[in-house]
């Protein structure tokens, strides 16, 4: 049974990655119930106290519980990067699929040029620049209030489109020339239908692997942007802005302020990469029933 699960994750590495990702997701979803303390609750009497029984990760300069803030910070990180990947994925896969399947015409050329232009913009600069221009306030749309991170994830998502589109495009280009696609054409099936039902599933595997990588990048970008103050706004915690606060305490001995958020960033990135590698193997239909070939 265990072996089946491990195999489904594409090996031991993938399994570990999947477990850690699972923890991260649980943490993000269940933050309000899992966190022992209110992450915003100020308690100056207990400020800067090292990890102990009550505060497992210690308290920060405002007496807030670091563990709770780390948990809530995880939620912000995952929220931003996951939604960014979703936007990038939908847009990227859609554009790449169209360009690759209907190649040889103006559609392919114009789409590829647009993507080239988008890809030439460095992610972090773009994120910082736009947030700098649009400001760090919350966004109000149709009566809903979105935190500053929403801007962030929208921007990230848009910039993810070229990478994912390119991967989809390359695979789609190859698959579009395959004989099984020709056979479907011979059955009189419309191009769009073939594209969606035959070519798309065969393009997803490399996209999913890349998407997990982008997830990891997103976490780092969110942390970076928050670190410079343009991301999640205080008092709400993010791993990035927690590190920013911890900057002042790097050499004065309050290690718990920087180590825990930093370790979470690293662990998340490692977990996501492991999972991505595992998924790549697991998603190959040849994986589960591979015959020994001589």
């Amino acid at each position, binding site marked *: 049974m265990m072996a089946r699960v491990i195999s489904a994750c594409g090996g031991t590495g993938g399994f570990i990655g999947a477990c850690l990702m699972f923890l991260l997701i649980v943490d993000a979803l269940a933050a309000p119930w899992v966190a022992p303390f209110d992450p915003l609750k100020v308690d100056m009497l207990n400020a800067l106290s090292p990890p102990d029984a009550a505060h497992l990760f210690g308290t920060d300069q405002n007496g807030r519980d670091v563990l709770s803030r780390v948990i809530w910070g995880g939620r912000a990180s995952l929220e931003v990067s996951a939604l960014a990947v979703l936007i990038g994925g939908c847009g990227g896969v859609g554009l790449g699929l169209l360009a690759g399947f209907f190649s040889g015409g103006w559609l392919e050329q114009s789409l590829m040029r647009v993507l080239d232009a988008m890809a030439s913009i460095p992610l972090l600069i773009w994120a910082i620049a736009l947030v700098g221009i649009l400001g760090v306030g919350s966004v109000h749309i149709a009566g809903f209030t979105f935190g500053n991170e929403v801007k962030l994830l929208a921007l990230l998502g848009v910039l993810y489109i070229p990478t994912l589109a390119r991967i989809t495009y390359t695979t789609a280009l190859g698959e579009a020339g395959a004989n099984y696609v020709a056979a479907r054409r011979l059955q009189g099936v419309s191009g769009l239908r073939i594209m969606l039902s035959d070519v798309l599933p065969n393009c997803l595997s490399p996209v999913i692997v890349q998407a997990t990588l982008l997830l990891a990048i997103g976490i780092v970008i969110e942390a970076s942007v928050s670190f410079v103050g343009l991301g999640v706004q205080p008092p709400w915690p993010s791993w990035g802005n927690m590190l920013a606060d911890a900057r002042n305490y790097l050499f004065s001995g309050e290690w718990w302020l920087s180590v825990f958020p930093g370790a979470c960033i690293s662990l998340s990135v490692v977990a996501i990469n492991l999972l991505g590698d595992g998924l790549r193997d697991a998603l190959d239909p040849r994986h589960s029933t591979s*015959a020994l070939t001589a």
Partner: protein
Amino acid sequence: MTDQDLLRVEGLHVGFRAGDQMRDVVRGVDLRVKPGEVVGLVGESGSGKSITALAVMRLLPPGAAITSGRVTFRGRDLMEANNSEMNRLRGGEIGMIFQDPLTALNPALPIGRQLGDAIRAHQSVSWRQAQTRAEELLALVGIPFPKERLRAYPHELSGGMRQRVMIALAVSSNPSLLIADEPTTALDVTVQAQVMELIDRIRNEFGIAVLFISHNLELVAEIADRVTVMYAGRVVESGGVETLFATPNHPYTRQLIRCVPRLDGGRGAMPTIPGLPPRIGSLPSGCPFAPRCEVAEPRCSAEDPPMRWRGEQMAACFLAAS
């Protein structure tokens, strides 16, 4: 097996790693090549013929290893040879040509450069001398305008030309043995004829022994002096080419010969061997061909068939005449 054998393979077993076990895909192969003779190694997919050749050269892919047996070249045990000795042999005394010349040649280097490298790997000559030799080799293998062609890249040449370059590479250090693994399979039939003619000419002019591996019976019959037939990792028949084709002693050889379509073979349904060759994971006990054999008896699936000798001819079959 005499001491004059150039290449001698005895009881070779080659296995692939599957989980924590080794599954043998070559199971007890004997082979010998005498100086100057052409030995044909015939088999279909899964027979293990290519793996045998790779094992002889110690070029097995990762996950595969020789599990038992002996390979001797000129009396030297190749199992004992270290890496640098093997490197001296490969491309030196033993030349190899493979099926797909496009992947066997480096696409990023002009062929003059590849030939030069190969020559200088085995002989200490200057670069200029190597290029002269390369030009001679290209002319030898029948490539027109050899001097200009030295600058060409592999993709600029046709399949047949590339194979000629491979042959030039293989004979550049005057080997005594040439191992040709399906050298013409990827080529058109007219180009195949040209390359076969070249191999024959080289073999005659330089007295090089050839281990010619192919699934094409007609091709092997054209060029070989002796033939070894493999099925599912075992040698099922071997012997002189004329006797083997005139009076095949093993049912697989007989049935296989019948399947080969001939231009003068009349019209009608094509003969075929029913069923499928066994997959590596599920090799049956006893004779591996028994499930598809038209004259199989119960004992064929129970015990391994003996090797029956009739002069120079060997057939691994209970029903073979001896």
